[in-house]
């Protein structure tokens, strides 16, 4: 009877924690997914200062602020408690997101608009930096020995589901109104929706009690007076912080980011797959991959965290290049036969406020069902005279490849495999980190390496990869598109070596309280 009650209580704890984390991820991703429209409304490229604030919002919140969130909220969580701290992060995230949806556009209030959005985005980054460590610690401290991997893996699932929900909400909002309405005010709805979700999660979390391990430490006066000093000023703890960072955390950051974001960017930009198809491919792969979090979390309770973590790193190192080679070949038009008789070309005029544009659309069909659509917009000037021969008058050229069903499923499978690698490296991570640090400094010691490894090392993946690809292309490397993968592969290889040599069975069960 007690066992049954404990289990039902654990579902309550997991539900309250994971739902809040999921909503925080939703809030964080919604900004990224709406980046182009936000840029248009708040950070016009024609204004250099506003564009500069946009760069700060992207880099600042994604990379720099998250570890600070870990420091600030980790310290609070170790001093006043897990429950109150992760309720603060939840509210901070919800209010910031909702307010982004309320900020008037640049055209209405000028510079104040991008400044306010930047500030709110930085607050989002701070909240996210403090959230995950708190939720994972809270769940782990409620779980019984030998079940932590399974229970904390639900928190990990929330990141993928949060991303999925953000894509779904944008998709539904966009398709439930006219493009003009969406552009005018509809884009704000996904931001406003956050406040309702946050409120529900807040009410659920408020009813929960403090974690038993922290409550016990507090009643015994065993909590830390200065968690930062104890975590990073004490050689015994610092060595574990460094080991966690250079061991499994960095690997998780780069492997997870590769499967989730690099794959999406690769399909959209390098392979030029139609963005609607990319969303579908990602959504299906995420849905299929998400159950593996709990499977591998459970497995880590049975066979140990180390083996599961190492399996994820090794598979990613060995398979990333063949996977991306196969993905690239799916839309490699040089290996397909064009059905020239089916090709179409159209031209239409489009009147903007000041000029007249001509839009040329060509469609090419291939023997396997692939369709290439190219849209070229040419500025005809005020006179309307054709300037097609002058390259500089071409305003933009977009290319979108629509793949046939078989190729779509192949891509879903290839992304799904990468998501599974991510689940292998992510599922046991929270339990591993929790067991590495004592209750008194757990929130701080957990949050800082986690946010540095994932926020900074993982967050820099797209930029470093683009740098590597660009260099390879300049040098005439025919496989230039694969060179960006060296960043996650090398980092995962270093992490694998460190995990293999330095992490011992004794270490993974240092603190089971």
């Amino acid at each position, binding site marked *: 009877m007690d066992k049954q009650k404990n289990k039902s209580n654990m579902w309550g704890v997991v539900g309250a924690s994971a739902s809040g984390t999921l909503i925080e991820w939703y809030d964080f991703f919604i900004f990224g997914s709406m980046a182009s429209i936000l840029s248009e409304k708040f950070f016009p490229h024609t204004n*250099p200062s506003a*564009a*500069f604030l946009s*760069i*700060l919002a992207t*880099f600042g919140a994604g*990379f*720099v602020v998250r570890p600070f969130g870990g420091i600030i909220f980790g310290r609070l969580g170790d001093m006043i408690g897990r429950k109150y701290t992760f309720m603060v992060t939840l509210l901070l995230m919800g209010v910031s997101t909702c307010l982004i949806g309320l900020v008037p556009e640049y055209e209405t209030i000028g510079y104040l608009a991008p400044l306010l959005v930047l500030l709110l985005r930085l607050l989002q980054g701070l909240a996210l930096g403090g959230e995950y460590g708190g939720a994972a610690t809270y769940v782990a401290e409620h779980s019984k020995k030998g079940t932590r991997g399974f229970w904390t893996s639900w928190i990990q699932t929330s990141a993928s589901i949060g991303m999925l929900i953000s894509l779904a909400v944008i998709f539904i909002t966009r398709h439930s109104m006219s493009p003009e309405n969406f552009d005018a005010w509809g884009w704000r709805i996904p931001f406003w929706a956050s406040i309702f979700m946050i409120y529900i999660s807040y009410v659920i979390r408020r009813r929960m009690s403090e974690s038993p391990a922290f409550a016990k430490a507090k009643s015994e006066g065993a909590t830390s007076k200065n968690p930062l000093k104890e975590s990073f000023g004490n*050689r*015994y703890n*610092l*060595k574990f912080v*460094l*080991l966690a*960072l*250079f061991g499994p955390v960095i690997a998780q950051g780069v492997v997870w980011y590769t499967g989730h974001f690099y794959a999406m960017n690769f399909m959209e930009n390098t392979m030029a797959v139609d963005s609607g198809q990319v969303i579908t491919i990602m959504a299906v792969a995420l849905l299929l991959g998400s159950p593996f979090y709990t499977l591998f979390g459970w497995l880590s309770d049975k066979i140990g965290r180390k083996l599961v973590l190492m399996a994820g790193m090794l598979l990613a190192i060995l398979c990333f290049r063949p996977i991306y080679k196969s993905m690239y070949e799916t839309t490699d038009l040089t290996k397909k036969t064009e059905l020239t008789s089916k090709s179409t070309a159209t031209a239409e005029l489009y009147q903007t406020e000041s000029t007249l544009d001509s839009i040329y659309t060509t469609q090419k069909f291939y023997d396997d069902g692939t369709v290439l659509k190219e849209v070229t917009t040419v500025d005809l000037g005020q006179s309307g005279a054709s300037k097609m021969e002058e390259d500089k008058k071409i305003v933009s050229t977009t290319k979108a490849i629509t793949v046939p069903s078989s190729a779509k499923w192949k891509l879903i499978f290839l992304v799904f495999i990468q998501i599974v690698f991510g689940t292998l490296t992510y599922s046991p991570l929270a339990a591993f980190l929790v067991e590495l640090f004592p209750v008194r400094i757990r929130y701080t010691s957990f949050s800082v390496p986690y946010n*540095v490894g994932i926020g*900074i*090392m993982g967050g*820099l993946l797209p*930029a*470093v990869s683009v*740098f590597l690809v660009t260099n390879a292309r300049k040098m005439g490397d025919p496989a230039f598109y694969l060179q960006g993968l060296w960043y996650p592969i090398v980092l995962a290889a*270093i992490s694998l*070596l460190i995990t293999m*040599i*330095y992490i*011992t069975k*004794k*270490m993974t069960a*240092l603190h089971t309280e």
Partner: protein
Amino acid sequence: MNALRRIFGVIWILFAIVCAYFLSTFGVPKFTSGTREGIVFGIIILFILMPLTVAGLAVFGYYSIMGEYDENKMIEK
């Protein structure tokens, strides 16, 4: 295994030096590119990522050489 951990300590310190070189060659051109995006990105590479990686790896290597990761030092005394 303890001996291997200590030997690898030297490798991590050497690797910290390699990272410093690689991140400089990556970050300095960005920092001096003159574009706003390049400057912000250069600052992140040179003043956030590089110190964390280089100092972190060097300290990790030093602790390894000093035997901090030996089996008998896992439990706090």
